[in-house]
């Protein structure tokens, strides 16, 4: 007869683990701790063939419990982690790194720094070489903390500088922190990946010490190197940098163009449209219209009065000039089936009017042009506005009535 129900050590620990899992999912930390107490003896058996052995389980589960349990303290946590470090040499640096994250989350920056330094100096035969990735991260985070120190020291100096009191030692420390930070930050951002925070800090350092070229180079690499994953933030950082340094409109536009391509709903699209509208070049203005329409495709922008005012301004301008109506037509073509319900329903007309008069004004203008004076939205808002005797709504009504034929041309 088969003994698959035979209760043996391995199965017993598996069952124990499932109890721990259940307890954790239900946030019953006491109960999880109770079962973990029974589970830990799994360490005394060799599980070297399993992908995830008991030592890793215990590390991860124990960490969770200690983080959430009401009676546990940081001291206990640190003590636990030190034990975990000795358990799995192959995971040593990973445990160190996660420990550092916890310390940082709990505001213990100094302890975090000490741990990072200790980890950096760890040697264990070929293990250190195998855990190369973690080592790089450790250096990178240490670089980040060095930046943090630098930043603090800089602020101290700036304050005292105003008082006319110069502290030489702080200044020396500051430069030393800079050097340490720069080395490590520079290293990590070479590796393809998402390093937003590290890049920002590094650029900040470079800018402070006046190395704008290097900073520009770094940001370019980060944004344009195809080995790096597509990252909207990279372009944002580059754009902000260029703006800070008064670079040409052309460069600003090209930076934002890519942002528009990968993140059409990004908040900078307003700035982008504003910039483009003002341009003398027809292509740029055309792009501007595309940009603002694309942004308003997104639900998060529905109630953005600024965005609507950009669109309204541009549409108005086109209508008045009577040139490039085909632009509007092109943009409207793929939207005419769903924008009316999405933006210009009667319900929205009421709500917008109640909540935000400016918003309803801008939207009404756009609706009036795109859907004609008889559309629900325009009718309701303009009626309400005229009833309330708000001047601009009267003007709006006149404007749309006057230009109603435009709508007819857009429709055809």
């Amino acid at each position: 007869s088969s003994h698959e129900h035979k209760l043996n050590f391995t199965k017993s620990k598996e069952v124990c683990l499932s109890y721990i899992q259940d307890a954790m999912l239900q946030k019953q930390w006491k109960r999880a701790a109770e079962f973990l107490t029974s589970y830990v003896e799994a360490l005394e058996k060799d599980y070297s063939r399993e992908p995830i052995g008991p030592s890793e389980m215990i590390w991860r589960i124990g960490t969770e419990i200690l983080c959430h349990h009401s009676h546990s303290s940081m001291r206990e946590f640190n003590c636990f982690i030190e034990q975990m470090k000795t358990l799995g040499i192959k995971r040593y640096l990973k445990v160190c790194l996660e420990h550092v994250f916890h310390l940082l989350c709990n505001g213990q920056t100094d302890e975090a720094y000490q741990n990072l330094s200790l980890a950096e100096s760890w040697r264990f035969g070929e293990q250190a070489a195998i855990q190369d990735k973690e080592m790089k991260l450790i250096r990178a985070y240490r670089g980040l903390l060095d930046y943090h120190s630098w930043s603090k020291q800089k602020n101290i100096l700036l304050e005292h500088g105003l008082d006319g009191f110069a502290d030489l030692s702080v200044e020396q420390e500051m430069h030393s922190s800079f050097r340490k930070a720069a080395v490590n930050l520079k290293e990590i951002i070479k590796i393809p990946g998402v390093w937003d925070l590290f890049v920002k800090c590094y650029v900040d350092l470079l800018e402070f010490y006046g190395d704008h070229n290097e900073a520009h180079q770094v940001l370019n690499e980060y944004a344009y190197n195809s080995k790096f994953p597509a990252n909207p933030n990279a372009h944002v950082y580059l754009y902000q940098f260029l703006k800070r340094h008064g670079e040409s409109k052309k460069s600003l536009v090209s930076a934002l163009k890519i942002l528009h391509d990968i993140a059409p709903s990004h908040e900078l699209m307003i700035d982008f449209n504003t910039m483009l509208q003002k341009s003398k070049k027809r292509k740029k203005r055309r792009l501007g219209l595309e940009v603002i329409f694309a942004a308003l495709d997104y639900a998060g922008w529905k109630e953005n009065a600024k965005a609507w005012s950009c669109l309204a301004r541009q549409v108005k301008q086109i209508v008045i000039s009577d040139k490039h109506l085909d632009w509007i037509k092109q943009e409207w073509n793929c939207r005419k089936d769903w924008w009316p319900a999405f933006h210009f329903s009667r319900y929205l007309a009421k709500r917008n009017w109640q909540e935000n008069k400016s918003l309803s004004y801008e939207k009404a203008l756009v609706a009036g042009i795109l859907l004609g004076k008889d559309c629900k939205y325009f009718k309701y808002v303009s009626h309400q506005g005229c009833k309330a005797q708000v001047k601009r709504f009267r003007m709006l009504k006149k404007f749309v009535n006057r230009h109603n034929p435009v709508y007819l041309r857009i429709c055809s």
Partner: protein
Amino acid sequence: SGFNERCAQCSEVNWGLTDGGRFYCRSCHNVTERTREVVNTDFITNSRVQKISKGLRKQKKTDGGCEWYVCEAFQLVLKKQAEALEALGVCPQMKDGILYNFWRCYLQKSKQAYCNRPSGETGKALSVCESSTDVESEPERPSFLHLLSLSESEGDLQTDCSFASSMSKVSESTSVYSGSVDGSLYLMKNQKEKLRMTMPMTLSFCYMALLWSREPITLSELLRFVAEGHIPYLNVFQHFPEKMNLCGVDLKIFCVESWPVYEEVYNKMLELAAFLDLPRFPEITDSCFLHPDMLCIKYLMEANLPDELHIWTCRVVKKIGIGEVDFLTLVPGNKSTRKVKYDILAAAVIVVVLKLLFLLDDHYEWLLSDFAEERNKNNKEGGLYFEFKKWYKVVKHSLDVEQKKLDEERAKYLWRCEKPLFYSVKNKSKVLKRRQMVVSLQSQFGKLSGSVQRAEKPNPSSFQLSWSEENTDGSCFHGHSLKGILQEKRGLLTAMNPDYWLCTVKLCNEKLCGHLAHYREVDFPQSYHFVLRLFSFLLRIQPSYIHDEVCMIEHKLFNKKLYKKLKYNTVLRK
């Protein structure tokens, strides 16, 4: 002695030897200048084996240990288990008289083929035989009864280790590391000797002795006491004397990693009984605890069923002849009779009775219950009629609670003990470090477990579920009457239920597939499954084993009808 210095670089004590004979630290690869000759040869693991092959015996080793044989250790285990049983109320006779003699008998019979003897050397009989009996040694095997008739106070089990010294020399082919003298031999597969001693077999010995002395402990109870820790089994080596060093392959023999299973222990017991050429066991009569009539009383009580059902269980037992002495008494070696598992049999009888009276088809039993409920409402005086529905609710609730507790206890079970075993001196420090870490983590998380302290072992009790008639909430059904479901026919009380469904029409061949039937929960009514689950919990075995016995009983009970049916079928075909 031994190179136990800490490494200058990393403070570890984890040395290996380079090809050049220098010591190097395995943790940090620091090579020392110390060379091998400086160090005491005890360090080298093969040294012990070399000593053995030179035939040294009873010599104190340099590490303070003594030589010991695997059998000595098992003897100790049995002694501890017997003492525990005595503490539970078993008569001392069982230990000193019966178990001891079983063990002696086993040793004698198994020593014939126990170790490799270089050709030409005749096996010496055990000094046990020589000193305490005047029975001839091999080839004549002394009969067990003869042994039994001799003085039973021939020394305590423990001190009778003299057989070890006259054992033949252990073969020089041992190259496997072990603390015992013959551990490696023990594990070598030798076809001649089938009944090599194992840890589960110690329980077979115990049960065999219990059965012989007809003690009121069933096998399922014995195993439950083992699981609850009242009888040493897991980590029993903790009780071994300090000097008895367990390591190497000894671990494979004495380190238990799973709980013994009923079938395993039971079948081994039968093998053992046959191996020892035991005669017919003392008879199980109707005044014995193990007789189904007696066991049914116990199980009916525990299952919170009316006492009146006992009449029915007795009727079934009588009808199919399973209360006969010849049926119940064990005759080792007789392959024709089906061997009796007393506890499972009694439980199965109750299940069959429930089926007879209540049908248990997920329909009829509830109907009957409704009638009983009506009657109970109208009948204010006199005893209560048994209502299946009420019983089900009460018992299910308790069963679920107890099952949940049991499952949690099993999940929390601690297997390791304070005395960790290690395979060799080499990994001793690693094992001890691990143990230390485990203890430390247990302490840390134990504190976070809140008020839950590890409860002391519950006192061993024969009853896992108990119901008191004094409870006013009506949760005890012992005194309830079956009147509502019975009718009188020609002066006899019979069940109102006219139907019965067989668990299986055809029994499987047990010898081929190990079971009489193959139980799947989905194939049977839920009420039937519930009843199986109840007894499965009480006996701590899988429901399918009870189902097998139920099938067996049903086929005996309805034998004639089945036979008629078959006959009828063959007639038709013609």
